[in-house]
């Protein structure tokens, strides 16, 4: 240790204390309490009369696994994440390639235009999109009608409600991923492109053999980050569809919110939250494993 190490150590702990208190007390502690809560039958009867709480072991998890609504929420969330995330990544990649091209003028303007949706308040844009999706007065169906397509009741048809929400999510998120791709593109050494050109490679070949392979790690990273974010889908269905029609847009977080804050079945809600955590953890570990295999 350096001279004055003790002073540093003391100062370090002093500096860390506020953050550690906040993070420890208001994040890690509730997470652990959540796990404990999921092992009890804490519900509305228990709030008024704490003596009604009982340890329930894995009863909540068992009940959850036997509830159709849980599987619906899980399926919907997986559908949303595994369709939406790749879509968002692909659109972002396309946008990044276009904005970053040598031929592009005013790249900053386009970058801002594509990024603006990401910055906006989710509730506000959900309200706007709700009106855009209206089967009679909404501009989307009007646009489709101009192309000769029959109007779709986007938010009222169980088959189309989730795709409608996926569209909103992709529109909102692709700008963020685009920035990460742009950073990745700018890090590709120019020599690789020059070498490819010398070998006679055209733009498509350069894309396939230089750009995409170089971007592969970013691809994985962005894809997984986006999917993890998409697992937390809540505001769009809450504002636009309320989980319907026919529960087709009920997401895990929305289901957890209803169980917890509408029906006050807190033990059950905590079990759902933990299942979500396990899901996210699994995806993250898979990503880390893939990363490790690729770099080794």
């Amino acid at each position, binding site marked *: 240790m350096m001279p004055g190490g003790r002073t540093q150590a003391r100062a370090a702990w002093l500096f860390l204390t506020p953050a550690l208190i906040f993070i420890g007390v208001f994040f890690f502690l509730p997470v652990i309490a959540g796990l404990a809560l999921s092992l009890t039958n804490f519900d509305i009867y228990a709030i008024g009369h704490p003596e009604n709480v009982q340890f329930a072991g894995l009863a909540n998890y068992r009940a959850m696994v036997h509830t159709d609504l849980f599987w619906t929420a899980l399926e919907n969330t997986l559908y949303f994440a595994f369709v939406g995330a790749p879509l968002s990544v692909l659109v972002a990649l396309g946008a990044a390639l276009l904005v970053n091209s040598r031929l592009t003028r005013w790249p900053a303007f386009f970058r801002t235009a594509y990024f603006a949706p990401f910055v906006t308040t989710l509730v506000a844009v959900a309200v*706007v999109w709700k009106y855009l999706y209206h089967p009679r007065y909404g501009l989307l169906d009007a646009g489709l009608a101009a192309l000769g397509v029959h109007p779709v009741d986007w938010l009222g048809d169980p088959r189309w409600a989730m795709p409608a929400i996926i569209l909103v999510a992709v529109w909102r998120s692709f700008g963020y991923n685009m920035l990460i791709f742009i950073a990745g593109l700018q890090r590709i050494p120019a020599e690789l492109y020059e070498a490819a050109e010398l070998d006679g490679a055209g733009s498509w070949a350069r894309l396939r053999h230089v750009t995409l392979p170089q971007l592969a790690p970013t691809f994985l990273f962005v894809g997984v980050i986006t999917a993890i974010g998409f697992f937390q889908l809540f505001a769009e269905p809450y504002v636009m569809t309320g989980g319907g029609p026919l529960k087709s847009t009920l997401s895990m977080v929305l289901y957890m919110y209803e169980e917890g804050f509408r029906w006050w079945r807190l033990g059950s809600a905590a079990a759902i939250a933990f299942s979500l955590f396990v899901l996210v953890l699994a995806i993250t570990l898979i990503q880390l494993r893939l990363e490790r295999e690729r770099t080794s």
Partner: protein
Amino acid sequence: MRRRWASVALHAVLVVGAALSLFPLLWMVSGSLMSTGEANSFPPRLLPHHATLAHYAALFTQLDVGRYFLNSVIVAGFATAVSLFINSLAGYALAKLEFRGRERLFRILVAGLVIPAQVAMLPLFLLLRSLGLVNTYLGAMIPAMATIFGVFLIRQYVLSVPDDLLDAARMDGASEFRIYWSVVLPVIRPILATLAIFTFLSTWNDFLWPLVILSDNAKYTLPVALAGLSGEHVQDTELMLAGSVVTVLPVLAVFIGLQRFYVAGILAGSTKG
């Protein structure tokens, strides 16, 4: 010649993309200026017949939106200020101060990044309830005041601050806090700006937590108030669009004004250190 065509095609696609990307936001503004019922007409309109600010007036005079705006400013502003201080202290300590267990602590914190915030929400609500912080501004701010992400961001950036700078100050007899305050903070201004913007934007836009923790109408932040209004006034399209504009405008303004920092921050966070 080929280059010319390629350039035209490229810009055409870019412009169409920008139009699609911005269209909902532009329609939001346009609709908010339409007279009542115009946005719900068939066939749908793109632009108002006669632009009117009546809905904005209604928002601020009848629906108390000014108050919700103020609440959002208070919660987001305060949370940002506090989080800047706390996160930078911790991030600096983790990056530059020597102490036992530093790396292990850092790894534990990073592991926490995987946990979705919603897992903590219910117990946190019960905890704040026992502390009497339900339905308070402080309760609304607490999740934002110190975050693992914030600490992480600062720590990654501070790693690049040259050690000699700090050693020189130590040799001059400066206390560790003095070093942090007078030497480090000025140097890491860019990442501080980035974190400030991040925190402000995410707190301003936050919906689920304020929905849960605030029960008094008077304390609602804009997103919560907007969601509530949209349930009651679903027939009043133009009014709701105006409400959306009021909610979105500040964050868009902050973003456009400070996008240099924001973008730099995202890029810094995306590289794994």
